[in-house]
């Protein structure tokens, strides 16, 4: 179990910059738009947002594990390699597209979040947590491979902690998550992670 937690945590820490760079620019204006001037109200909003993200992660974790259990032949060593290679290409592609277009590439995240930003931080976090960005796709694949809801939940929980580390300062220092530097760092980490998974995927074939 410790190795599963460590893997999930490290994946989150390695991908967190990427996630923060892509999703936090939406989250921080939302935090500011709630109209709360004090730190405590903003923390409450932030906690609700994180609770929504965590709920999404756990739902996906259990779903992936149950899918893996129902279809034990779903994941073969060759398919593992193919999926890793696909995730790597998508990860690198999204990183480069983000670098050029400066856009949040969480599918539907920004528009949907805008509509709900009026008063539903939990649901906003839930929707952003369901986004299929490439690091999340890698984690889903691992959940299918584990085929055990408890282990998959632990993995995604650790992943959540790792990615949250990058978002945690947001209520205190809102400016940093919207900085171009943070966005670029997230993109670079995404490209590096894509290259790593590409090599792992090719080696697994």
């Amino acid at each position, binding site marked *: 179990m410790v190795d599963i937690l460590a893997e999930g945590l490290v994946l989150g820490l390695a991908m967190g910059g990427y996630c923060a760079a892509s999703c936090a620019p939406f989250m921080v204006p939302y935090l500011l738009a709630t109209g709360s001037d004090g730190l405590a109200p903003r923390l409450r909003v932030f906690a609700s947002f994180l609770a929504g993200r965590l709920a999404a992660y756990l739902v996906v974790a259990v779903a992936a594990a149950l899918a893996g259990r129902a279809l034990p032949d779903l994941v073969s060593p060759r398919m593992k390699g193919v999926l890793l290679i696909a995730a790597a290409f998508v990860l690198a592609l999204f990183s480069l597209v983000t670098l050029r277009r400066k856009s949040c590439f969480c599918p539907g995240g920004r528009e949907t979040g805008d509509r709900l930003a009026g008063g539903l931080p939990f649901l906003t976090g839930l929707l952003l947590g369901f986004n299929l960005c490439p690091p999340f796709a890698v984690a889903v694949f691992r959940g299918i491979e584990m085929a055990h809801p408890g282990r998959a939940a632990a993995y995604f929980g650790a992943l959540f902690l790792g990615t949250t580390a990058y978002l945690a300062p947001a209520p205190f220092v809102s400016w940093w998550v919207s900085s171009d530097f943070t966005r*670029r760092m997230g993109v670079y980490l995404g490209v590096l992670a894509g290259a790593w998974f590409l090599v792992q995927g090719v080696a697994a074939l």
Partner: protein
Amino acid sequence: MLAASLGWAAFVAGLHFRMERTGRFSFFRTFYFAGLAVFFLLNMHFTVRSENWLAPYCHLSLAGNVLHVGYNQFLSAFSHDYFRYGALSVGLFWLLVVLANGAAFCGWTCFFGGVDDSLSQVLRKPLFRVPGGARVREFQLAVLVFIAFLSFAYMEPEFCLWLCPFKVTGEILNPGAPALAWQTGAYVAVGIVVLLVLPVLTRQRTFCSALCPFGAIPPLARGLSPYRVAVDPDRCARCGKCLEACPSFAMEMTRNSARTTRYCTSCLRCAAACPEGAITTALASGRPSRIVVLVSMLLGGALAQFYVPGGVAALVRLAGRAF
């Protein structure tokens, strides 16, 4: 060995005197720096094959494995086996070196830096330039972060396995290891291209600027470094020759003049290229000073005592076999 050590000390002193006498800091630095790399690689290559070889606490390895090493250091606190797990104490040594030498470490002291530094001066003009400017150095910081997390996850020195510059001298890993083919392939595709080929074609230190995990650290400590390479705005003609000459993506042009950024390694190629003589070494206060050259050669020369005598001995043995 004593003779080789004394000879090396005399050589460094004489070289520094020559630099001060002629003012050709960049020119002599290039040969000095390349020599460090050559003798280090020679010494390591032949030492590794000996029975008494011990893994060195290389600064590149420590930078990439900082989380892994920190974990081992934590274990040492409970195991009392301090010497076995005390790699972080060597990390503290490298941190002190960075504080003493600043980013000039990358331009004067690092025993791997001479590889791509010397190759970046093979051609008179670059065939093309790596785009992105300072963004390349930001990518280097991402490499440090990524390698650190990856090494911690797998409890392996990932940078050493995949990208170590020493691998150009031959494979040092167990040839029976199953991952070896992939690591060698990745190294040829990425490491060798970025370390050996691109510096020649671009006249830029692409490995040291983009992939070296340790190289991301000195710029972070720029605020603590007392050394600068300063551009006199009154003399600067904004011709851009210094930007073309800089191999480390460390020059930028402002409205008034060119200026160095935090990534400057004090290699002084910009100063050698400047037709107006507007670029000099200085202290952080702006006062002109060449102390960074003295400190760099003292530090680099002292560290080189660990490997130059052995490298010279290896060279003599090679020459003996050849003739």
